[in-house]
């Protein structure tokens, strides 16, 4: 399975989907013009990955410093996908944020609350 990388832009984060190491990382800002369009390749890649290519342990590192509300919505969908995959896979999620970034902190808390069965760790920088 091929890895998938997106460079960061002014409006979108850097995305690295590494099937070999099982490390998924999203770093940067997220307020694309069309959020669902932008993240579609990532979501498809993940479905494919968890269906047949997942590593023993999958680590998700998310460091989103700024995001719009449709990105929040997409992240919920993203966690839904992980939530479905968790029974057959070991998934570790790090939600990384600057301690002064209140929005990122609150979003992380929302995810923890909504996905009790997922292993989400809030990591301050």
């Amino acid at each position, binding site marked *: 399975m091929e890895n998938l990388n997106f460079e960061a832009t002014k409006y979108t984060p850097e995305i690295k989907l590494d099937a070999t190491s099982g490390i998924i990382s999203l770093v940067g800002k997220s307020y694309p013009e069309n959020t669902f369009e932008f993240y579609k390749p990532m979501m498809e890649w993940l479905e494919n990955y968890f269906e047949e290519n997942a590593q023993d342990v999958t680590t998700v590192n998310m460091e989103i410093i700024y995001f*719009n*509300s449709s990105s*929040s*919505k997409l992240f*919920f969908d993203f966690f839904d996908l992980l939530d479905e995959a968790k029974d057959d896979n070991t998934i570790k999620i790090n939600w990384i944020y600057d301690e002064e970034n*209140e*929005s990122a902190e*609150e*979003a992380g808390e*929302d995810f923890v609350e*909504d996905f009790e069965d997922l292993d989400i760790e809030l990591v301050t920088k």
Partner: protein
Amino acid sequence: MSDDRERRKAERAERREKERASTTNDRREEESNQEENKLVGEIDELKITFNMTIDKLAKDIKRQDKIMSRADKRQRKEYDELQDRLVEVTALQESQKKLMDSFIELIAGAIDAKSKYTGGHCIRVPELSMMLVKEASNSDEEPFKEFKLESEDELRELNIASLLHDCGKVTTPEYIVDKATKLETIYNRIHEVRTRFEVIHRDLTIEALEKKLAGEDVSTVDAWLEVEHKKLVEEYEILAIANVGGEYMKDESKEKIREIASRTWVRNFDDTLGLAHEEKQRVLLEKSETPAVEQLLSDKKRHIIEREYFDYEEYERFGFKTKVPENLYDLGELTNICISAGTLTYEDRFKIQEHVVMSIKMLEQLPFPENLKNVPLYAGSHHETLIGTGYPRQLSAEDMSIPARVMAIADVFEALTASDRPYKEPKTLSASVKILSFMAKDKHLDPDLFKLFLSSGIYKEYAKDRLKPEQIDEVDISQYL
């Protein structure tokens, strides 16, 4: 028997029939039961799916709510931050503006402080400019009907230009700006010339004594000496008066000066001693053996200070038109004492005028923001006229905006009325207005602005603030309107 059999048969048949019927019924019942169970199962499944969908929907709605309220909260926070930042930036901008304004005033003050010649000129010209430009802007009369200069930025632009209009003067040598007599260089050379007169005076005395020693008639010699001394003193007085440059020097006066200058004295000392390198080089151009016979006043090669470097290309690029003298300075004694009007040579005059060139070059270098972009233009036009006779660009009426014309009037009027210049007596208000009127008539200043200056009473208002009581006299403005 047979009946019994028949009956039994019939009974059996009936029983069988009954049994059969009962079995069918059972089966039917069973079948119906099975169907019911299936339906219930399907309904239950549907219920579960439905409940799951409802749950998911509810969850989604909850998430949606959460996302919205978080987004609202963040938006509020961001907006608050933006507002705070705006307040900060505005305050910062304000303080930077203040700093810039103070800096500009400091420069204007420094130019004023550098030379007694300018006094408080750079600080006072803006006052006059602002008064006059506001009046022109408020005027509904032609030609100012269409002219509006009201915004804070526009006024600030003119104020800054007025404050900095003479900034180039920091590069003008003080002894040129302050050159109050013709023979002045760094000091007034009249003292040196007077010493030569003293030498000649003694030479005459010695000559008289020698005559007496040689046996000439004592009383004849004394009479001769008295005449010669008197003549010499008179000649010095003529020269000294000429040095002040108070009045226009006619050709015959120049002739008289040349005649006086042709007197000789004997120099017994090496005049290349005690000089710094540069001057020594110049004096060595005409080294002479001592004793040397010297003219009382002369123009020598050593008096010419050559222009070492001048960027003519740049000069042209800036659009400067004033002719550049070949030499930087001419310190020639005869040349200087024979200056027709004022105290400045052609070279000195250019050096003075060059202050505008320098002002423009300096101001053009500053990255003025869009709202102050006219500062160099306004500041650089204060010595221009409406007929192409000004400097340094020899602009004409169409090139001169109203603010530039305003500054030109402010510049002249301040200079005329100033009472803080050591080289001249302060002029009265009426005399100053009169000179202004000549300049307006000659189109050196804008005649309409000059009239507005009078009719609005600005001249009076300014005089009350800035002139000495003894300068303020009655001005009959009707003759000028």
